């Protein structure tokens, strides 16, 4: 046994926790999507002629997909988490259930963690009928994260090809969308662009919900 122990280990002889009751006791922890806000990333406003390291600032215009929210320019964060744009609506057939399959093309890991946070009690994506698929064959939407990498190029294409039609492609994070500060984007075209480095869980869910409601 170790030298330091804050708790004793159960022998199994005593009454062990009933996780079901324990879970119920903690009550519902799910939140509204606007309940928690963070400043970076959030929609930036204002003007800046700063020499942006990712070329997200050009001719006075801010390109959300390229921004890594590095706080170096004079744009101000608003706290507004709507850092996304919808190119193409999600087909009606997915109104009642949408299965996401994530592919890590070349991430730093933070986008992956934010993606898994969708399934946390605070965000509970299942209340929006958004679930995770374990294989691209059962997926409706491909969630692409990270920059283009040589090793993942074919894997990404194979995952896309394996999905049944109709299919949706979601770009999650600056790396996937534009390459961010690290490289080049993982795919040419996305139906849903979720900006941020990494995007917040609320932004991811709001983007998908908006794309599903769009006519």
């Amino acid at each position, binding site marked *: 046994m170790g030298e330091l122990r804050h708790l004793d280990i159960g022998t199994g002889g005593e009454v062990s926790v009933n996780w079901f009751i324990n879970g119920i006791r903690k009550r519902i922890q799910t939140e509204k999507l606007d309940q928690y806000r*963070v400043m*970076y990333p959030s929609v930036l406003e204002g003007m800046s002629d700063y020499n942006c390291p990712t070329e997200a600032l050009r001719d006075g215009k801010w390109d959300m997909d390229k921004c890594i929210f590095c706080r170096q320019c004079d744009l101000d964060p608003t706290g507004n988490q709507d850092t996304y744009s919808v190119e193409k609506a999600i087909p009606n057939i997915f109104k009642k259930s949408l299965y996401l399959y994530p592919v890590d093309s070349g991430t730093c890991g933070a986008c992956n*963690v934010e993606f898994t946070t969708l399934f946390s009690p605070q965000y509970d994506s299942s209340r929006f009928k958004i679930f995770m698929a374990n294989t691209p064959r059962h997926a409706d939407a491909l969630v692409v994260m990270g920059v283009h990498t040589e090793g993942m190029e074919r894997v990404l294409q194979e995952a896309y090809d394996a999905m049944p039609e109709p299919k949706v492609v979601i770009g999650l994070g600056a790396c996937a969308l534009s390459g961010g500060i690290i490289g080049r984007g993982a795919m040419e075209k996305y139906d849903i662009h979720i900006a941020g480095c990494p995007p*917040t869980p609320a932004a991811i869910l709001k983007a998908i919900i908006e794309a599903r409601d769009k006519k």
Partner: protein
Amino acid sequence: MKYYEFGDKTGRYVGRTEKYDVYTSTLTEADKEENDNEEKTQGEIYFNYGPSAGGLRESVNFQILTPGESIRDVIINSGFKNRNISIIGDSISDAMLKVERINGFHSASHSIAYALAVEDALNIENDDLNDARIVEIELERIRSNIDVIKGLCESAGFAVPEKQLLLLREEVARIISGAFAHRYYFSVNRINSIEGDFSRISLRTVEKQFRSIYEGLLSSKIFLDRIQENGIVLNPISTGPAARAGNFRYDARLDSKSLIYGKFNTVLEKDGDTFSRFLVRAEEIFESINIIESYGVKRIFRKNKMELSGSGDGTARIESPAGDLFYYVKIKEGKLADIQMSPPSYLNIRNFRSALRNKNIFTDFFFVWESFGIWISELEVKFQ
């Protein structure tokens, strides 16, 4: 280079950069790595898993050599998501934007280690940031350890504690964003400066919530049965919680001078199995809370826009959540001429493999994997 020199092997081995083998105070030319794959015998197959599969958070491929139920070997192909990062020639401040994205989940550790190496190279006085940097890293350790234990619950199919730990991981992300305006410490650490409000860090509820989940797990015989006596590794060439779980008192908080820690308790276990790694990760959450509270850092730190130039080479080694993290930088007139990094995942992924080769069955695979807390992102970067 205050703390390192090129020369003979001295002290314990902490990992490898692209060019160097790294010991506690010396760097040597990297040795060649031998191929020690087990020979496939009749009746055995390679079971192929990944690089992209449900259950894998990052892209990595495993070829598991098995005669049926037991695992004889596992060949790990982690190179699929290898990122080439163009950083040589960048100004030392611009390079930080890339360094903090080597491992986003341990970004405080990477950005602080890099800043410390640059400060060493340019002889920049940084004592006033020591305590705040420790607080950041310990807070990151708390989140990381929660995540590892969440992974173990997920592998065991224990959905309730898994969700409770996900909830807690998110709570810690919010404490981090409350203090630093970002959930992963991006653009928080700079050379000789920090941007953040440390008065907003309070961990009382995290401690209470974690204690209750931990108590529950320790009383769950099924959970304990699943993680005991599998994935055993007792290897003197190891790092971080995996080393401490095998009774090796290895910890950069004890034997590196890059950050100066006060007194704290080192958590050690003896058996080197998945259960021991679970205990070390869990107990270290309480210890990290104690460390953070003992410093009592409550001030607001603001970015310091000092112009940086100069030449020199410097190193830093810190204890990231998974073990020794080492940086070497060579700076020429304010620009990076070389950067070498050794992440803890280098030794951890090798020890994961030895742990699996040690009498395990298929169902142990995920427990053992989760218990090492490996990040492919920091393992597969090539600086250019």
